[in-house]
């Protein structure tokens, strides 16, 4: 009798524990995916803001690359495509060596192009279409790139690229779906354009 009672209690406890473990495991999985997604977004933002911070200058010519939405142009295309030059160890005020870096939001991913130029301004290495982060689901109203002037006012010009080129900061916003049915992860980071300080 005692054995039956003890076994029953143990079974009930075990069932409860298994239920708890199943729930905990599900939560842990979701949390792990959430954390992984957040880390991926953080790493992507780190890379993007590192490049954007050093932009010198932001391009006013829309890049012809599959890493950016096709049939778009500047200035309206700045929200999902940003191309810039980063000058490296130049001597005598020349603008080479340099890298021309492009970030674009296409097919649910942030893509990156990078072309390196040597001190003679000759292209040496080219990488195209590197996926920085996937499962990006920014809705149409949430631009990946937003530009702000030195007074903190958002640049919204649809006629001139100049205010974008001279912007003081760029906010990068990524909305990432890490699991169907779960809330999306939204992370933003603002990079001050160090070479646009006057």
């Amino acid at each position, binding site marked *: 009798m*005692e054995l039956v009672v*003890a076994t029953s209690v*143990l079974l009930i*406890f075990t069932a409860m*524990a298994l239920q708890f*473990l199943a729930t*905990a495991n599900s939560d*842990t999985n979701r*949390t*792990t995916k959430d*954390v992984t997604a957040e*880390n991926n977004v*953080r790493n992507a933002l*780190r890379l993007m803001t*590192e490049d954007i*911070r*050093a932009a*010198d200058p932001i391009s006013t010519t829309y890049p012809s690359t599959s890493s950016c939405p096709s049939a778009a142009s500047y200035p309206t295309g700045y929200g999902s495509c940003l191309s810039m030059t*980063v*000058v*490296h*160890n*130049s*001597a*005598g*005020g020349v603008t080479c060596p340099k890298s021309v870096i492009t970030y674009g939001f296409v097919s649910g991913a942030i893509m990156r192009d990078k072309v390196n130029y040597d001190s003679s301004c000759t292209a040496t290495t080219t990488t195209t279409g590197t996926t920085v982060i996937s499962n990006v689901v920014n809705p149409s109203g949430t631009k990946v790139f937003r530009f702000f002037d030195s007074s903190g006012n958002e640049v919204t010009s649809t006629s001139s690229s100049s205010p974008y080129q001279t912007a003081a900061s760029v906010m990068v916003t990524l909305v990432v779906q890490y699991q169907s049915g779960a809330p999306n992860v939204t992370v933003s980071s603002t990079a001050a354009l*160090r*070479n646009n*300080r*006057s």
Partner: protein
Amino acid sequence: MPQRICRTQRGSIPITMMVMLVVTGLVVAILATAQSGLKLARRGGDSANALQLADAGINDALKQISQTSQSSISATTVSLGSAGSYTFSGSRDCCSSIWHLDSVGTDATGVKRHVKADGTTQPLFGNALFTQSTLKMASGSSADSFRDGTTTANMCTQHGLVGTNTPSQFTFNSNGGGQAISNCRGNTYGYATDGCISYGDGTQALPPYGSGACPPPPATAKTSPALQLPQVQAPGITLNQSPPVCQAGSPIQGGQIYYWSNVVLRQGCTVDTTNGRAIIYTPGQVEIGDPHGNSGTINPPPASTAICGNTATSSLKDVWNNTAKFYCPGWAANLQIYIISGSGSPGMLFHNHAQFWGVIEAPTTTVLTDGSGAPHVDVWGSIVANSASPNAQFAFHYDDSLGDLSGTGRYSIANWREEPVS
């Protein structure tokens, strides 16, 4: 009774232990996950701190380079206590007035980030003529530029710029009628200068452009920031109250700094550059040329290929029929005149038909001429002053090499970028 109690409790301890073990395991796993996430998040914050520290190092280096006369700044570490530290260094570029800066920021936890940047300064003598305020170009004035006198192209490099911080007070022909004459590009060019620049915060107007004035954009443009001429302080030597008049047979010896009560440079004045350049400071008037008749040449370049290269033997002439030998590269830097701030006006007076080689900085002084109309003054070099209201026409011939002669001492950041931590 005691025996019954003992039997009912048998087996409880292992079950309790197992339950506790499972619960403890779960707690430990959850804690480990939380701690890992916390560590990751904290590292992100530490990394951001390190970037801020590295940027502070760049700003510190920027301050240092404006105060040093050396060509490098050795690695300097600044500790901010519990906030971390940064180490910066810098080296002057071999070929221009640019500094290459390097800074590594280290957070209190040891996270490092590495930033490089260039410190750039606006050239002090980057224009043929620059004024901070009023700029009146008399009828017939012009500005062109040269690399040397060996070819007509090198005598017309299209850098003859006139600049001002106050484009609203930049006028042409205000002291006479007619149009400005053409510069080295010939009579069909139709504009007085190769270009004009207005300096300011970006909201300033463009200089006046059109026929007889500045050429249209992009040759005429505006730029930021405003060009603040550095204040000229008296040198730490005794003021000579009776300075010599530089004229034919009485040259200025180079390789020295002079502090004269006033400066008089007459026809035939030269600089003996055997020992270097002549640098003159004065709180008084700078008078260039002769008050009667044509002034002639003041500090003309020597006919020496050792100094002027092939320009010394060139047989070309410019559109004013001046010999190309006048276009000696770098010669203008051998006579530098600095009018001490607060000296007032008239501080710089050019006489009729003076042909002058040199550079002059006069941040609180006005450029004047005592002639009017056609008796024009030729300047091979650069003048930066508070204002300019000459009566006679000027023909400026800007020496391209003067851009690297000296900076304003106010540095700003360019080419800021992150680099991997080595």
